[in-house]
């Protein structure tokens, strides 16, 4: 393993924080979904790094599952967003507060 594990940890952490920022700060449903994807990828990077660090393939196997779930999640999520946009004419999360 050429890349030190610490660097992997830092990269994954930064990515995760960026994902959080994207989810919390961007006023768009699509960007929120994107942020969630970024966070998932950060976790995936960490899993890959960890599996290399301990020479154990379980981590890489889990990452494959994560990809599959992420793809499914994006497709369902985007479909929901499109439907919601058709209903309300807006993808700004501030307008989705009728449950208040």
């Amino acid at each position: 393993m050429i890349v030190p594990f610490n660097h992997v940890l830092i990269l994954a952490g930064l990515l995760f924080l960026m994902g959080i920022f994207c989810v919390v700060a961007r006023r768009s449903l699509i960007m929120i979904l994107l942020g969630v994807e970024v966070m998932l990828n950060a976790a995936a990077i960490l899993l890959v790094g960890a599996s290399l660090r301990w020479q154990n393939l379980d981590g890489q196997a889990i990452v494959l599952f994560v990809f599959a779930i992420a793809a499914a999640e994006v497709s369902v999520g985007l479909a929901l967003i499109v439907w919601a946009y058709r209903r309300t004419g807006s993808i700004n999360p501030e307008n989705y507060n009728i449950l208040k």
Partner: protein
Amino acid sequence: MITNWLSEPSLTAAILATLLPFAAFILIMVFTRKYPRLSAGLSIAAVGISLISALFLLVRHWHLQTPLEYTGRWLLSGDVAVPFGYLLDQTSLLMLSVVATISFLVQVYSLGYMAGDAGFSRYYACMSLFAWAMMSMTLSPTMLQLYIFWELVGLASYLLIGFWYEKFSATEAGKKAFVMTRFGDVAFFLGLLLVLVHLGNLNVLEMNGPQVATRMSSTYITIAALLIFGGIIGKSAQFPLLTWLPDAMEGPTPVSALLHSATMVAAGVYLFGRLFPFFSQSAAAMAIFLMIGTVSMLLASTMAMVSRDIKQVWAYSTISQLGFMIMGLAAGSYFAGMFHLTTHAGFKALLFLCAGVFIHSFESNDMFDIGRQGGRRLKIPMACTIIAAAALAGLPPLSGFFSKEVILGALAELNNPLWLAAGLLGAFLTAYYTFRLIFIILFPRQSGAESESGHGHDHGGYWVMGWPLIVLAAITVLLGFFQGALEAFFSGQQGIPVAGAGHHGWLPFAAIGLALGGVLLAWLEFGRQGADQVGFVEKIAPLNHLFAQRWYIDRFYRRFMDVFIYGVVSNLFTRNDKKVIDGGLDGLSQATVETGRLVSLLHRGMVQYRLLTIFVVLVFLGLYFFI
């Protein structure tokens, strides 16, 4: 104390003497404010019974050997018990009688003086309060109780000095008296705390006892004595806190009479007498007391030499006579101070009550004015004033002569002849300014208006006001001859070091000579035919100015207030108020508002804020569980 108080006649009398005026005060304030005559009757009856009780106690315990102490527990907290009760010994009995006598006479006199005043009931209520506070103070067995009543005396005098509260100067004078005496009282209280820390309690007899020296080092005794003396300086208007007393003239004249003779200012000297054995354990403190007494005595005498206001002259003379008493006490003669306190109470009350008649009749405080309007036509007050003034000047055979003689004798005992010289100078000045006033009233220059000035006589209250004067004049004339009896009375008191009564045969003659010299000087300048009625002091402009401005003491206080209190202290406090207190409160409310705004975001139904909250909470949970 409570269980068998009926079987102890002394205790019954003491309770009657002290509690009845208080009962009168409450009754008047609560029920009879609408009925002035009833109020006056209540008050006078209460103080009359007090007087009878006091005299009964005095006669019954004339040969008292050991002090009687009746105490009950008032407060109990842990192992600290605060006793409350009565202490009957020579000092307190004599003072009680003096206070009761003067209060009674002044209240009777006030029937005439205050007749028709809108606040008649309030006046008598305050008088009762005053009498109660002062009499309870004299009988206090502990310094704590004494301090409580000491402050009540201050409160009552504040109420009475500012009695005509619609007059701005009166409220100002009341305030000044209150604040200045309080200034001294702070020191007094600190001194008491110091004693309490070392001694464990504040019992008067214990403080006066010999065991104090074993429990407190001499340095602490000196410090405590000086601090307690601060209270005396404030109350008895000694240097440097003497300027409140001349301003206290704003109250009704009978109040001044009471204030100057038996209650307020006498409380200071009484405290000195009360703790005399304690004070006399510190020679250094006694030397300072002697100095303060001397300075006050001389300063006040010089002020009295140029004043035109009749009440003010007597006020200055009070300060100077109190200085005399303190000199006598500080010189080590307990009897001298207490004897002069007693005689002074008589003739000073008389002087003020007479001045009250003049002021009442002529509606003027100015002595030249009174003389011009025919002050000498009022036979009784004029005669009484002359008697009292002669006593004040120390002319035989009046009471003042005897007591002054004792003080001068005590001063002569001291090693330094300076004190005796100062005392004799004071006697000379006293005679001078007293008879200056007498001659000015007696021999007015332009007496044009005298013919129709007899209107003072047809005042209804003239005789009501007259007979207390006669009683007091009789006391003034006769009291001096009881010197021996009083001396024997006091000799029974324990713990009072007997002053070596050395005999100075020349002293009475010197004193009489100087007093007569003062009278003669006053006669030359004010009395004789063709005198221009301008004193030698008034001819020297700077000196006149200095004396009339009270040695600039007031001016100094004013500047001190402006520069230090308002400039520095109050400025700092204002800043603190604005920056720290206001700023802190503002910041606090600002923070609350901001927090509220943040919290309200959660309730907007906005999904992202909730997500943020979830993340934050998760981070904290992670920190909590994994670190």
